[in-house]
Structures are given as C-alpha cells and as structure tokens.
C-alpha cells in the first residue's frame, strides 16, 4: 500500500468536499459563526481540518453568492460573524447533493463489484 498516495488522496477528497459539507450544514437555515461552524464540520463529518482553511472557503462561497454574513456585536466586546445560506446557496446545495448521491451510487456499485 502506498500510504503517501492514500494520504494525499484523502486530503484532496476532504478539501474537495468541504464546500458541499459547509453548504449542507448551513442548508438547515441555521446561522453559524466561524468557530462554531468549524466545530460542526468536525462533529458531523469527522473531518479533522486545519481550522484556518475554512475561512478562505467561506469567503469564496460568499463571493459566489451562496452564503451571506453579518457581524453581530457580543456582550464580551468581540463580535461574531454569522454565516447563513442564501436561496442560491440552497439550490446549489440541492444540485450538488443530487450529483453526490449519483456518484456515491456508482462508486458503491463499482467497489462492490471488485
């Protein structure tokens, strides 16, 4: 087994699916602030990502109009930036989910045939 190759493949797979995961978490109309969202990703997917990697992704999703954000002042004095999914984000997520389900079925068939 080529461990290095496997590790690289897993890393790419995680990175590639992260936008789908984030949109999936936000799809339930709940707002999350950055740190909270990272913990949710870790909890729901067992993906142990470097926490900083989520922020560039959130910026890209925002640029694409899939999520929106707003700063909310906190009592402690350090405001939180809350993210929520947009309508376009919802429909994009549904499209991604359809593809993901189809891909998953094909891959399951393929791997079971081996």
């Amino acid at each position, binding site marked *: 087994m080529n461990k290095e190759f496997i590790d690289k493949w897993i890393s790419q797979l995680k990175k590639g699916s992260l936008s789908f995961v984030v949109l999936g978490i936000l799809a339930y109309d709940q707002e999350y*602030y*950055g*740190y*909270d969202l990272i913990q949710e990703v870790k909890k729901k997917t067992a993906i142990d990502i*470097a*926490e*900083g*990697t989520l*922020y*560039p*992704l959130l*910026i*890209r999703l925002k*640029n694409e109009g899939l999520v929106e954000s707003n*700063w909310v002042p906190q009592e*402690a*004095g*350090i*405001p*939180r*930036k809350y993210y929520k999914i947009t309508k376009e984000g919802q429909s994009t997520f549904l499209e991604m989910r359809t593809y993901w389900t189809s891909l998953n079925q094909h891959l399951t068939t393929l791997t079971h045939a081996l």
Partner: protein
Amino acid sequence: MHYNQIPFTNRSSAQLYHDYMSTATALVKKLALEQRQDILCEINSHIFEALQQQLPPQLIHDAMPSQLQEILDKLGLPETFIKEMILSTSIAPSIESPRKSVSVPIMLTQGIVNMIYYIIYTLMLIAVFLVVAKFIDPQGVGFFYAPNKFFIFGKLILQHEEALRYEQLGNYFIPAFLFVISGLYYSSTLILKLKKSIPHKL
C-alpha cells in the same frame, strides 16, 4: 470595523497573541481597509471563541501560553491560511485597485516628485564622479572660470590648457563637493518622505 484586542494578563500569552495578530496585520496590509479589518476581526473572533470553549468567561484574559498556542496551532500558520483568504478576497470585485482609483492630480504630483527625485539623484551621481575624477586627475578637474573667457565645470580637455590658471576652488574642490553630495542626499531623502506622504487615492 476595527478589531478589539484581547487583553491577556500573562505576558507570554500577550506576546504570543500580539505576534500572531501582527503577522496577520502585515499579511493583509495590501487589501482595502474594509476587507483588511474584516479578516482581522474574523481571526480575532475565532481566537476569542476558542478561548471561551476552554475557559470560563471571567478567566479568558488569564489564558496560559500553552492554551493559546494550542488554539493558534489548530487555526494554522497565518502565512498559510491568510494568504488563501487574501487570494479568495482578491477575486471579489471590491478589492482595492490603486491603478484604477488614482486621480489625475495625484498622478501629476507623483510624476513631478519622481522627476525631481531623479534629477537630484543624477546630480548626486555626477558629484560623486567629479570627486573621484579629481583624485585621479587633480589638475584637469575643477571649476575653471574667467569672466568672458571660461566657464568650465568638470574635466578639462586639451584645448583649454590655458584655463588651468583660472581654477577657482583649488583644494576646496573635494570638501565643497562632499558638502554638495551630502546636501543632495539629504534632499533625496526628503523627497522620498514627501513621496510617501502623498495619498495613493483621493
């Protein structure tokens, strides 16, 4: 929005936090003010929220360096993820574009200042050259002046051998030029300071 710094009672923690945020600030300095502050506030908020998970609210400011270091390690090196944030931000149309936003009066002012700077710099190079030339050829280099006859500043050519008698500066040539060079150098630094003080956009 300007980020509110988290005060730490432990000096090592405060230093650790300060170093991290300073690196982040340096990395985002080329972004537009709003985007810059947005990224810094986001990082600051992440650190604070992570501390809140580890410590009760009243003890956050007493965080130990090891606790803060763990949070920063998980967040990642600023050089890595902030560069990605900048790259992602740069795709957005709101990135500050100095070329597009520079106004005509500012461009003109910058052009004039640049021109003055290059003139001063060229004069300085000429003065240095003359000092070196004076060392190599003490007689042939100088300030040769005779009313209605000569006005030669620099290196004499053969046809003006007569002019040697009319050299005005003599042994003061090199000190005078060193003085001129230092004056020009001082002027060039002043011009550079002036250039920096010109706003990049209105």
